[in-house]
């Protein structure tokens, strides 16, 4: 299996408390791992539409993000491939192009990466300030570790790594 390009993307707004979880997780991931150049770490911030290329241009992608799960326990959730819902929402503004739209469009385009993993935690505090709540800070290492394990799993299966 080819894993020439793996993108690891952190999403969120660092100024908005736990909303910044994805970016904080990415920063931690980047610091604590030494993967080969085929693994790219991308701070996606609150971008929507600009992320499409990062999703469509790789063989596998991991996204860290704060999320609202179906059942609401405060723990680390890992969703893979078809478990990810793709929605194209009715929007008030182009600001609202989010990850779910990007997944929907990548699917419609037939350009979804072979592997797509979303790792996230439901937020506790969504207020204008910098820094995660203690609850989410505690869950951060586990989320990063999940990401690291999955990337290693992919790299182990890879036939050719550039």
């Amino acid at each position, binding site marked *: 299996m080819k894993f020439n390009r793996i993108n690891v993307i952190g*999403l*969120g*707004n660092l100024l*908005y408390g736990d*909303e910044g979880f994805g970016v904080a997780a990415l920063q931690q991931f980047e610091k604590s791992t030494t993967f080969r150049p085929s693994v790219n770490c991308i701070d996606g*911030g*609150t*971008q*929507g*539409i*600009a992320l*499409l*290329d990062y999703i469509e241009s790789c063989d596998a992608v991991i996204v860290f*993000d*704060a*999320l*609202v*799960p*179906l059942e609401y326990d405060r723990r680390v959730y890992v*969703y893979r491939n*078809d*478990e990810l*819902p*793709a*929605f*194209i*929402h*009715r*929007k*008030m*503004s*182009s*600001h*609202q*192009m*989010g*990850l*779910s739209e990007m997944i*929907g*469009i990548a*699917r*419609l*385009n*037939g350009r979804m990466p072979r592997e797509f993993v*979303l790792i*996230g935690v439901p*937020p506790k505090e*969504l207020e204008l300030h910098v820094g995660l709540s203690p609850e989410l800070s505690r869950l951060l290492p586990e989320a990063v570790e999940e990401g690291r394990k999955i990337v290693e799993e992919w790299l182990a299966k890879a036939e050719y790594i550039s």
Partner: protein
Amino acid sequence: MAKKIVVDPIPRIEGHLRIEATLNESNVIEEAYSTGTMWRGIEVILKGRDPRDAWAFAERICGVCTTVHALASVRCVEDALGITIPTNARIIRNLMNATQVTQDHLVHFYHLHALDWVDVVSALKADPKQASAIAQSISPWPKSSVGYFKDLQQRLVGFVESGQLGIFSNGYWGHPAYKLPPEVNLIAVAHYLEALDFQKEIIKIHTIFGGKNPHPNYLVGGMACAIDPNSDTAINIERLMMIKKIIDDTNTFIDQVYIPDLIAIAGYYKGWLHGGGLGNYLSYGDFPETSLADFKTLLWPRGAILNKDLSTVIDVDPRDAAQVTEEVSHSWYTYSGGDSKGLHPWKGETTPSYTGPKPPFEHLDTDKKYSWLKTPRWKNHAMEVGPLARVLIAYAKGDPMIKDTVGLVLSKLEVGPEALFSTLGRTAARGIECKQTAGFMRHYYDQLIANIKTGDYRTFNSERWEPSTWPEECKGFGYTEAPRGALGHWIQIKDQKIKEYQIVVPSTWNASPRDANGNSGAYESALKGTPMINPEQPLEILRTVHSFDPCLACASHLFDMNGKEITSVKIV
């Protein structure tokens, strides 16, 4: 009793635009109230800072129309300090601005607004053969074979059938206000996806001149990019050729995809001419051919039109204290001299004072203060800004390109100029303008090449860079026409620091609440009188509000596994 509809994004994430509308017995909108539910506050953040840094803060007001606040900001600082920028800097700024408008209009039409007119689910019923025949009859665009549409339709079917996708359950698909035949819907879905692919090419021009996108780099005194045809790291021949290619492809896409789609779709909706609204239009103008102060040379003319009177374009001076003012009688701020007294931005105040209900709430008391947006007025008139305002002002002033294109679109649709005063007119004006700015991109590219050929590589004027060269106290005004309309930044500098900074953004004009005299803002006025087929699915409200291209503070992107609608609709 009158019904009330509230259209509001999920308030848990953060505040946005909220529309409350009351309907009469026959479901026609009687009154509408537009509320900005979030405070921007950048004016307060800028106080006391180095004016040369202001653009970097102001630019981050918005991540979609990303370059416009930087442009208005450097222009107001240069105006205050009396800085003249080099010719290359003027051309590059114009080229970046034209790029921004073109990309933004294209994205708006396909990815925000199209779904108000295009029923995606209906595309499943389309005959690919017929879709191909229609596509080929309206445009020479090569992606139009039967196989192409068949393949897309199959992907669409697979997408819908994969079950766990809530995508089509939460739209208003099948709403009787949709009028397109399935084949035109299928073509529009194809171009929705193609436009998404293409728009990211256009914006590469920003990364070439500004280093990155969003939020490219600007510089007080010019632009931060070096021009040197012989250098690997500067703007060289290779980069310029890349820009040329993007500009050519952009013009092709607009001419062969956007404009034919716009005309084809509008043809089915020309009976739906609601949403005109105020009939007052304002533009500061933009695209200076010489200096900004010489506004007679602006390619987008400056002016105002009142009461839809296209025979008269009134002169506008945003520096005049009696012309552009903001009052706060219905906004959550207080003014030291009384809330209903309009203040010119050079005398502006930003003192927040929230008196609304504690969120989450059902209703706002619209007799009192009900918005975080201030209430800008021009000579006490509520004004509409944006593509329709600019196109009408250029049309009324006899701009040949606009006259021709507007004439062509109107004749193809077999309607008169009065059809422009509508939601559809606003949407058509955006397309017409997009074609124009794609042309501007070519124009400025040619200007840039011609100027470089004279041996002029200068992009920065450093004469007044050092604060020691500045006057003790000064003030400036910077303007641009953002994709969404007139944008002004007013600065006061004292002791080398920002003393006061006021920003009046396009969406504040369009989404403003009522003023002290009870006059509605542009959204509020445009919604009045619109008949709704089904108040539980307020497609008509979204259509009209979207046609203004609302610019709201940046949304956060919490991933919602439940696929709940971002925009909640409540009827109470």
